[in-house]
């Protein structure tokens, strides 16, 4: 790796994206274990919440007819 490319990678580092990537991998594992979520819809974003939420990893989508 060159210094420039390492710096580019450091610039790409992001706590938010790391967390999002970790969540994606967790979803992948959940799917592979048969506990995956069904399709997210356009109708309401009752989506993945922090632990403690009533419905844990329940997921939905969203749309604007309201």
């Amino acid at each position, binding site marked *: *790796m060159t*210094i420039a490319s*390492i*710096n*580019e*990678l*450091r610039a*790409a*580092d*992001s*706590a*938010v*994206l*790391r*967390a*999002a*990537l970790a*969540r*994606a*991998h967790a*979803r*992948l594992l959940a*799917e592979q274990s048969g506990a*995956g*979520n*069904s*399709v*997210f*819809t*356009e*109708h*309401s*974003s*009752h*989506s*993945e*919440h*922090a632990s*403690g*939420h*009533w*419905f844990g990893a*329940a997921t*939905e*989508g*969203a*749309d*604007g*007819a*309201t």
Partner: protein
Amino acid sequence: MTGRPLSTFILKVAGRCNLDCDYCYMYHLADQSWRERPKFMTADVVERVASRIATHVRNHDLRSVRVILHGGEPLLLGPDRTAHLCEQLRRAIPASTDLSIGVQTNGTLITRDWLRVFEANRITVSFSLDGSEEANDRHRLDHGGRSSWEATVRGIEMVREHLPEAYSAILAVVDLDNDPVEVYESIAAQSPPVMEFNLPHAHHDAPPRRPRHCIEPAYGRWLAAVFDAWAAGSEYRHSIRMFEHIIGLEVGVANSVESLGLAPVDLIVIESDGSIEGVDALKAAYHGAPSLDLSVFDHDFDAALAHPAVAARQSGLAELSDVCRRCNLVDTCGGGYLPHRYSTTGGFRNVSVYCADLAFIIRHVRSRMVDLQQLIAMETAGGIESAPG
């Protein structure tokens, strides 16, 4: 032979709205069937819906189902009738099945009584808000042309402060006239667990508004600006559903949002008169587009699954245009949201009217994730520490 069981049931509990948002597919686009439908879902429809869902759960041994109270504005149904509806659902659906209930609302009607109903019935609440007052009021006005922003924000604050476990999400519709970062930050200020950005409903016969003579992916660039603002945060505070699903699809998660990816769509819409419909946003395409000619009074949900229009949405790649099937982004894009593919001449076998925008945002997210995964791999191998500089 039927497809993947349905697991999400969109109940159009109110056929009217106290707002008059000019982009709303219910009232302002091609389909005008709302004029012929009851203002509210009646008790006999609710009873039959609950029974049909319960039968579907039993027939397919479903571990969990979701019911989304939708409209119009679903809170027009009132707290008492909503509570009764939830009780009917919970009474009918086997206790061994996890039933989650959510509502998609403009939030303007939320009161203490509603908070009690949300709490007692464990209803999660997702709000529609397009950003700051100025951004929101481009479209989201009441029937008198007055702003809805303050009332919506008051509703959000009530739920967030008094019933945070019910606070689910904020949905915004993209408008190119609004600054993407300002929209993102104004929504983030409401601290939703989840944000969603929807593209305005459009199709090839009624394309989205774009800068004049501009064929560049303006919506994709708008979304990319939001993505960059989100990614630049110092900590993970909220999900942005579209972006996280692109990330998920990129790492191989099979499930997807309805508007991305190739997973079978497993939701169904029940109108206030008991009609079963496939995708209500198809109202944007042409009058009668969502109709399946099915009703909860005469048909179970397996009949809906067997309907060609529903089966088509479970067929993934097979139902897409030739262009989509040859595209190297198709696993992530999935052809985009069905209503956005429509044209009079080609039906739904077209690329999305947002094709260039979807390609732009997917590539944008992908480029950041490739860098990030490379970085993580290097750190894991100790490569960063040993590198000069």
